[in-house]
C-alpha cells in the first residue's frame, strides 16, 4: 500500500538507479550488486515482479527491442526520476536525524 510517503524497497531503489541507463534484467542484477559492493543480490523472481509493477506504475518503460532479440531492455521515466528524488530526500532526512541524535563520525 502507498501512504504517499512510503519508503521504496531496496530492490526498487537499486533497480531505478540502475535504469538511469538502459539495461536488461541480468544487467540490472549485476549493476545493483556492483553499486552496493556485493551486498544487494536481486533474485530473478523478485526482480521480475518489481519490473512488472514499476512498468504498471509508469516508473520505467520497456525499450522497443530488435525483433530477433528476446531480451528486453528497460529505462527509467520522468515519473521514475521523480520517485527517486523523493526517496533520496527521505533518506537524507533519516541520515541527518540519525547522525545528529546518535552522533555520526
Amino acid at each position: 500500500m502507498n501512504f504517499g510517503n512510503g519508503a521504496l524497497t531496496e530492490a526498487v531503489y537499486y533497480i531505478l538507479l540502475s535504469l538511469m541507463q538502459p539495461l536488461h534484467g541480468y544487467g540490472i542484477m549485476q549493476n545493483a550488486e556492483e553499486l552496493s559492493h556485493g551486498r544487494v543480490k536481486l533474485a530473478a523472481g523478485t526482480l521480475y515482479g518489481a519490473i512488472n509493477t514499476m512498468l504498471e506504475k509508469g516508473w520505467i518503460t520497456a525499450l522497443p527491442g530488435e525483433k530477433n532479440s528476446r531480451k528486453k531492455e528497460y529505462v527509467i521515466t520522468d515519473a521514475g526520476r521523480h520517485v527517486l528524488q523523493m526517496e533520496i530526500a527521505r533518506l537524507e532526512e533519516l541520515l541527518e536525524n540519525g547522525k545528529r541524535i546518535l552522533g555520526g563520525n
Partner: protein
Amino acid sequence: MRKKVHKWIWAWNFDKEEKWLNEMSDKGWAMVSYSFCTYEFEKTDSERYTYRLEFLKNGLNHPESQSYLEFLEETGAEQVGSWGRWVYLRKNRKLGGFDLFSDFESKIAHLKRIAFLFVPLALLNLGNGISNILIGIQNTTFINPANFWVGCLCLSAALLLLYGDLRIWLKIKKLEKEKQIYE
C-alpha cells in the same frame, strides 16, 4: 552416465527438495528431468548447479509463465523439469548464486500461492469425507462399509492437506514477523 531415483516429497517440503537436489549436485549428480516421483540425474565431473523450485502463478504454457521463464533464462537459469505448475530450475554455479526471491514480500507471495491451492482441495475432501461417513453410518442396523471407508479416505486426505497448509502457514508467519522489522 545417468540414473533414476524414485522419491516422494510433499509439496510443502519443497525447500528440503531443493536442498536434496543441491546436495546431489555437490556429489556430481545433476538432475536433468522429472516425471512423477522420478528424478533423473546425470553424472557430471566438473559442473555444479544450484537448484530451485517454484510454483508458478499460472500454468506452464500460459504466456505469462513463458515470458517469466524466458526472463529467468536471460539471467543464466534453465528449466530442467516441471510438474503441473511446479518448475525445476537450475543455474550453473560458475555463473554465480541463484535465488528466486530476495525479499520477504515475494517469498511470502510464493508460499501463499502454494497454500491457497491446498485450501479448496482440503475442503472438498473434508465435505466428501464427512458426508460419506454420515451416509455410511446413517442406518445403524446396516452400516454401508463402502461409503464409510471412502469417507475415511477422504477425511485422511483432507487432514493431510490441512497439515500441509499449516506447515506453510507457519513459514509465512515466521517471515511476516521478520518483515515487521526488516525489509
